[in-house]
């Protein structure tokens, strides 16, 4: 392969066959002279007497170089050149005009119609030879570039397949989540990532890297790995963003970064958590899109710019109604251009939303309008649109593995089990540390490392998160869940929570985990104790059982159902959950 390419590097000698030359001239004596000169240079020759004949000869013989007279009967050299160049397509076939003309306009026209050089009559051997040599050099370069381009395109296609396999194939794609990704090049600088947290939460990240094409797409690989690993382990949105930011800052060169939109649909179906970092506003709409309920503006820096960005304070939590939509849109949409160069723009986008009739998904109606707008205008940037519905359907469906029924419990099930072993560890977090650290994923991963839990991990995660959040929010921070029930309550609640967390100077939470595992069954006891005043738990549990419509307490009730027992003690600042399973 290299050998044929390098032939062009060695100076061509007259002894080598040069290929086929087409001479187009109505004057026979001219053709005879040029024929002789080219024969001397080892060309094989075909001839044509006018422009129309030249086109026929071109089609029949596919010459390597063409010598074209200008003034000819039937069809002149200009028209003939235009048509032949069109037939050449991507192949470079040099056309050298034969001219006795001194008229500058005519000479300029030769180049305009696609001619590559002139040769003035009467022909001169030395001049002709140099011109041909120059043309051959250009032609070889042209061929080399074309081979390289073809090769690159081919390699890009393969790489893209491998790449999107690695990045996108790991995504969970709930049926009701609609996405449109239209890259500007083979590689997309936009990346859509989705994954389930152990408690069933759906995490969706739409990232937009600076630039597009291969260099922009490369960063998607580490981002997807971090996003997926941390989501699966149950880390919070801000922790995931912090880690992605750290990783990108290390990996990406200066000037390259990733803007992102992040949505988490919480499994409790009472809220979504959102974060926008350098992207257009995330829009929260009703099902048809006609009502924009919230705009989540960019509050965080794009990822990868500074080493230690903290996204904790860039988070928004909002309550949502069933069937609401979170719309993630990359700037490739608003900055898409029509053939006249006009931008699509935010206004046009929101007009489509306003006209929504629910007959088709929001993503589809935007995509259709966009297509009619852009027509065949070149696409400058990657276009991505994602519609995340606020529906239980998009959450993870886990098989119910916990053995809620205790009737089947075998009396002496574990007495003779050789794998009987147990493990206990206690963690205490104090004061300001509670702001910085979410111990739940760390603890769960610790248990998993030590105990090799599989299916049980999700449930233990859910129980532990719920108990820990309760201890922190209500025990330490003394927040009242009824706040959430009021209009705009979620925002108030989370703003207040963040404020109190920052002011926190003392207090502690102790988590004790005691696990006992057998070959196919086991038991985990989780105790959470906080330094708070406690609460009237007997009364509280009785109340939530009678009124399930309030979001407060719903999580606790769910937890109670997952556990074999859930017991509050002391003043209500200590709780013990026992979770057992038996795979037999």
């Amino acid at each position, binding site marked *: 392969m290299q050998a044929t390419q390098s032939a062009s590097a060695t100076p061509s000698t007259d002894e080598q066959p040069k290929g086929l030359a087409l001479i187009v001239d109505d004057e026979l*004596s001219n053709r005879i*002279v040029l024929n*002789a000169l080219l024969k001397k240079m080892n060309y094989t020759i075909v001839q044509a007497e006018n422009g129309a004949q030249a086109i026929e000869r071109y089609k029949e013989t596919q010459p390597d170089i063409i010598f074209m007279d200008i*003034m000819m009967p039937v069809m002149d050299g200009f028209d003939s050149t235009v048509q032949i160049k069109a037939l050449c397509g991507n192949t470079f076939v040099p056309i050298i005009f034969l001219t006795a003309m001194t*008229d500058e306009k005519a000479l300029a026209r030769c180049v305009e119609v696609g001619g590559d050089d002139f040769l003035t*009559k009467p022909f001169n051997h030395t001049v002709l030879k140099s011109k041909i040599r120059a043309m051959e050099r250009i032609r070889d370069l042209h061929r080399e570039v074309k081979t390289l381009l073809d090769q690159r395109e081919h390699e890009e296609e393969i790489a893209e397949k491998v790449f999107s396999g690695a990045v996108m194939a790991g995504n969970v794609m709930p049926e009701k989540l609609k996405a449109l990704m239209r890259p500007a090049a083979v590689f997309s600088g936009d990346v859509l990532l989705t994954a389930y947290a152990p408690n069933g939460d759906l995490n969706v990240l739409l990232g937009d890297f600076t630039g597009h094409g291969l260099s922009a797409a490369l960063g998607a690989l580490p981002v997807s790995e971090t996003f997926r690993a941390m989501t699966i382990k149950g880390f919070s949105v801000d922790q995931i963003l912090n880690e992605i930011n750290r990783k990108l800052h290390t990996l990406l060169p200066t000037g390259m970064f990733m803007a992102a939109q992040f949505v988490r649909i919480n499994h409790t179906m009472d809220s979504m958590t959102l974060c926008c970092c350098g992207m257009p506003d995330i829009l929260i709409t009703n099902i048809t899109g006609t009502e924009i309920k919230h705009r989540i503006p960019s509050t965080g820096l794009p990822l990868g710019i500074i080493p230690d960005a903290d996204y904790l304070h860039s988070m928004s939590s909002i309550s949502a109604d069933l069937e609401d939509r979170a719309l993630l849109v990359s700037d490739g949409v608003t900055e898409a251009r029509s053939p006249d160069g006009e931008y699509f723009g935010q206004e046009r986008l929101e007009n489509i939303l306003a006209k929504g009739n629910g007959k088709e998904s929001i993503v589809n109606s935007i995509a259709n309008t966009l297509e009619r707008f852009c027509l065949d205008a070149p696409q400058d940037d990657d276009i991505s649109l994602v519609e995340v519905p606020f529906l239980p359907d998009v959450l993870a469906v886990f098989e119910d593995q916990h053995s809620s029924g205790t009737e089947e419990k075998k009396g002496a099930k574990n007495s003779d089990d050789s794998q009987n072993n147990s493990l206990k560890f206690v963690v205490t977090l104090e004061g300001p540390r509670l702001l910085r650290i979410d111990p739940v994923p760390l603890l769960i991963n610790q248990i998993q490392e030590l105990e090799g839990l599989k299916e049980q991990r999700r449930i233990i995660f859910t129980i532990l998160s719920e108990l820990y959040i309760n201890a922190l929010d209500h025990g330490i921070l003394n927040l009242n869940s009824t706040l959430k029930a009021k209009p705009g309550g979620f925002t108030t609640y989370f703003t207040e929570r963040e404020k109190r967390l920052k002011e926190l100077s003392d207090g502690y939470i102790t988590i004790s985990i005691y696990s006992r595992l057998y070959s196919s069954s086991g038991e985990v006891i989780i105790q959470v104790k906080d330094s708070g005043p406690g609460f009237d738990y007997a009364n509280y549990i009785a109340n939530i059982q009678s009124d399930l419509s309030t979001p407060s307490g719903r999580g606790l009730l769910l937890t109670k159902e997952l556990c074999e027992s859930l017991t509050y003690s002391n003043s209500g600042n200590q709780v013990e959950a026992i979770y057992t399973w038996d795979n037999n």
Partner: protein
Amino acid sequence: MDSQHHTKSHSSPKATDPIDHSKLNAMRELLGDDFESLIHAFLSSGTSIVASLPIAIENQDAIEVERLTHSLKSASANVGATALSNMANDAENRIRDCGLNKIESITSCIKLEFEQVQIELKKQL
């Protein structure tokens, strides 16, 4: 190298040899066996051009006259008929600048010059 001189001397062609023999010999060397076909090709197209010129002028077809003189210009240069080529060039320029007005004064010179060239070339066969 001496084209400037010839351009100005077209009105008195008899003073010089109608053929630049160094050019013609260079062409003979280049073409080898094809040299004779070049001479034949030139004589045939030259004869046809010289015969067509008065008809095209009669028809007031400036485009055709221009095309004919243009062809003669490059064809005669190929056989070293430098004076003839220069005359054809003058005729072509004149038509481009002021149409067919008084073109006969040049074309009749062309006819005479071609006859001289013809005689000289036939000697080469």
